[in-house]
């Protein structure tokens, strides 16, 4: 190989520069603060399902609720967590506890850069604490 020394050095410089954001952050950067969710202030301690399930699957559950209410007219949801019956309603049931959209929904959604369209139509509670 001609000019092997120059090429290899050049490649090393290129790789170092191209990956600089990664190792610079690894050495000196601070990891961005994970969002802290504001938990319900109305004294309620459990959600309609287990916490871990809700963190991972709330979007699917909301879609199921939407289809059940709108398409089949079913409004009662029986929790597998505590066998209680809940009204399948975003604004009545979810927002009854998680009354502050900015501090609850938006905290994670902004962090993860997802923009669900729930609130294009559904109305967030006014005068949330």
């Amino acid at each position, binding site marked *: 190989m001609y000019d092997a020394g120059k090429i290899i050095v050049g490649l090393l410089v290129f790789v170092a520069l191209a990956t600089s954001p990664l190792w610079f952050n690894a050495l000196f950067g601070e990891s961005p603060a994970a969002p802290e969710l504001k938990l319900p202030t109305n004294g309620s301690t459990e959600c309609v399902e287990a916490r871990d399930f809700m963190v991972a699957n709330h979007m699917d559950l909301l879609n199921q609720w*939407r289809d059940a209410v*709108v*398409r089949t*007219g079913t*409004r009662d949801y029986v929790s597998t967590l505590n066998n209680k019956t809940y009204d399948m309603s975003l*604004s*009545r049931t979810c927002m009854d506890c998680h009354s502050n959209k900015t501090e609850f929904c938006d905290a994670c959604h902004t962090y993860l850069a997802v923009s669900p*369209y729930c609130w*294009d*139509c*559904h*109305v*967030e*509670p*006014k005068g949330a604490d």
Partner: protein
Amino acid sequence: MDGSRREFLKLAGLTAIGATGASSVRASGGASSATGGHAEASSDGVRLAMVVDLRKFSRDGSLAERCIEACHRAHNVPDFGDDPKNEVKWIWTEDFETAFHSQEFHFIREDLKGKPTLLLCNHCDNPPCTRVCPTQATWKRDADGIVMMDWHRCIGCRYCVVACPYGSRSFNWKNPRLGLEDIDINFPTRMRGVVEKCTFCEERLARGQQPACVEVCSNDEIVFGDLNDPGSKVRQLLAERMAIRRKSGLGTQPEVYYVIDDPRTLQEFAPAAVVDGAEGGDHA
């Protein structure tokens, strides 16, 4: 050789006759079942319907407006003022002759002539709007006959607006929140690019309430109930009184009825006011 060709042609001819004959039989059978299926009231389960008593509405000039306000407030229906292009309405009024323009009226009674008539989605038994929806965002519910809408699924193609012969569907050309002063948080608004209409207040029915417009009427000016129940108020009223429906000739089977009896038959309710009404006097 000749014999076998002859046999072959015979067989081919018979097969051709058999095939065309069978397909024409099938075609005629299909046609008869297509016409036989519609224009029959659903016989099973609940069939919700509304009866608007125009005799009583003609006595209370502001009642229709109050019904409209209650409905539009409960469902966050935007108001863009006198801008017909952006108008969104679930329930509204037209004068009597316009509302029933497919029926000809000459020299009609004064208490009906030009009177504002309350109009809304007819929740047809044979709704043309649901057939044209490409996304099944609107459909007739099997359980009670309500012509329902799924605003999550509507793509705003407006086929249903064109298909509805009653003008019951409105399109949101603008973001509806621009036309709302107070938003009721118990009901969603819609977004721009979505069609909306009356849903017979299915969300209120699910909570055991009457529709918003019916609740405003304290004296059975609007009666709401199950058409399949012979003892229901709607059936009683239809059995006793003369009622008409809008554009019934189209075969859509609208389920909003309008009682047009002579208001003098209302004497049991308010004798003095009724005599005024019958003579075409002041209906305030």
